[in-house]
């Protein structure tokens, strides 16, 4: 019995085709972990915060939990053979690797959330991309930062200078927001509808094509999963 599930699990969700294969494989064939890898890379390369993949994350974590439990069970079983032990080790290693990606994904989001915390608090449109816990953290962090700056600097300044939302001509705004002009490398995962470039021309990326464009150009394609950032 141990054999069957170990085999199945090793093949199915984690040990997927390599990166090269992945590029040519169909979109529908992506395993949850491959999806996570894709979202993780997108998140790391995108200047803006992308929509959080809570459901996917939950599914993967459930799976990780189940596998860890099973591993514990099997390890406790004195009858398991040498070969099974080797497989257990493989599964454990894979679990650790999955956890690494999950961790890195969450931390990447967290970093951006903190960086743009004040912008997020002030921009309701950005809220739907965050989970509730992330949004709460963003709000808390924005408050915290403002409180700290007030305590350390602003309260000692004359009242006219205490605002944290000055907009002075020729100076960057005081609330940092994502720079959607930042260039990104995109890889088309399928045939894409045409997008308009900054100079007014339109390009339609065929499958497999890689381009360097400002982020805002491919923002919608990315949200629909038609391209990925690399």
């Amino acid at each position, binding site marked *: 019995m141990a054999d069957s599930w170990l085999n199945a699990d090793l093949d199915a969700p984690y040990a997927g085709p390599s990166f090269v294969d992945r590029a040519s494989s169909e979109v529908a064939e992506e395993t949850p972990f491959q999806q996570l890898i894709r979202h993780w890379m997108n998140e790391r390369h995108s200047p803006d915060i992308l929509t959080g993949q809570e459901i996917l994350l939950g599914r993967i*974590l459930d799976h*990780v*939990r189940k596998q860890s439990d099973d591993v514990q069970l099997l390890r406790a079983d004195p009858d398991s053979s040498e070969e099974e032990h080797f497989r257990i*080790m493989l599964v*454990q*290693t894979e679990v*650790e*690797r999955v*956890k*690494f*990606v*999950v*961790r*890195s994904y*969450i*931390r990447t989001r*967290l970093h951006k959330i*903190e960086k743009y915390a004040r912008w997020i608090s002030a921009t309701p449109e950005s809220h739907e991309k965050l*989970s*509730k*816990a*992330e949004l*709460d*953290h963003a709000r*808390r*962090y924005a408050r*915290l*930062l403002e409180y*700290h*700056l007030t*305590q*350390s*600097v602003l309260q*000692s*300044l*004359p009242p*006219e*200078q205490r605002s944290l939302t*000055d907009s*002075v001509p020729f*100076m960057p705004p*005081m609330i940092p927001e994502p720079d959607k002009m930042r260039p990104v490398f995109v890889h088309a995962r399928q045939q894409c509808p045409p997008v308009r470039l900054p100079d007014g021309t339109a390009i339609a990326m065929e499958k497999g094509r890689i381009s360097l464009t400002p982020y805002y150009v491919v923002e919608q394609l990315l949200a629909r999963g038609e391209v990925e950032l690399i």
Partner: protein
Amino acid sequence: MSSTTQQYGDLATQLLTESRRSTATDTLLKYNDVLVRAVIREQRQLEALLQAGLAAAPDTDDDPGAPPNPALSTVLLYQTAINRNKRCLLAYHAHRIERLKDLYWRVGGALPLLLSMAAPAAQTAGQAHDSAHAPQPAAAAPAPADVRSKLSPHEVDFLRSYNASLLALRTDAFSSATAADPGAPSEDVDLMAPIDRPPRGLTVHVRVVRDCGVVHTEQGAIDFRRGHRFLVRRGDVEHLIVQGYLEEA
């Protein structure tokens, strides 16, 4: 103007230089209270001058034909200096916050450890989780010695609140509700673990650089004594490596 050898903004430039130095050498410099206060004093002085200048300038907005008021350029100068100083002040503090957060993550979110780092030679061999009184070995991390004394009181407060906020985030989002005992952290994924490099394998050879008492691992309880070497599961001791008790051998 009033001062002879200094221009407005010189002090603020010094603040920025400190920030740059801190980044370039990857160290946390001591909070420069004196300089910050000096800049703030300059701000008050400038504001007074500005108000005086504004009061002296008659309002000529209604009359587009009038010659430009000579006082306006003075006012503009003060205003520019004020804006710049304020920006430098805020940048200095924001930069420090970023550095502090870096340090915080680098020790795996062990705030007590961070604050008490390099406390004078306390040889506490308590539980591994009770890392509050253990000094950070100087060689283990680039984290500078004696962090606490370099912080302003507000920065300590900030770190505490930040820690609390992250804790709330973790309990909200990433803890499994199935945990039997509420006391133990039951995270599926340890957010605080390092993300520099993906794990190579399950186990890791470690050298103990500082006593950390008996730790329960998958292979049973191990008494980590200084100088000993062990082959252990990475997941069991990851936090000890991050916090500098163990070194990968």
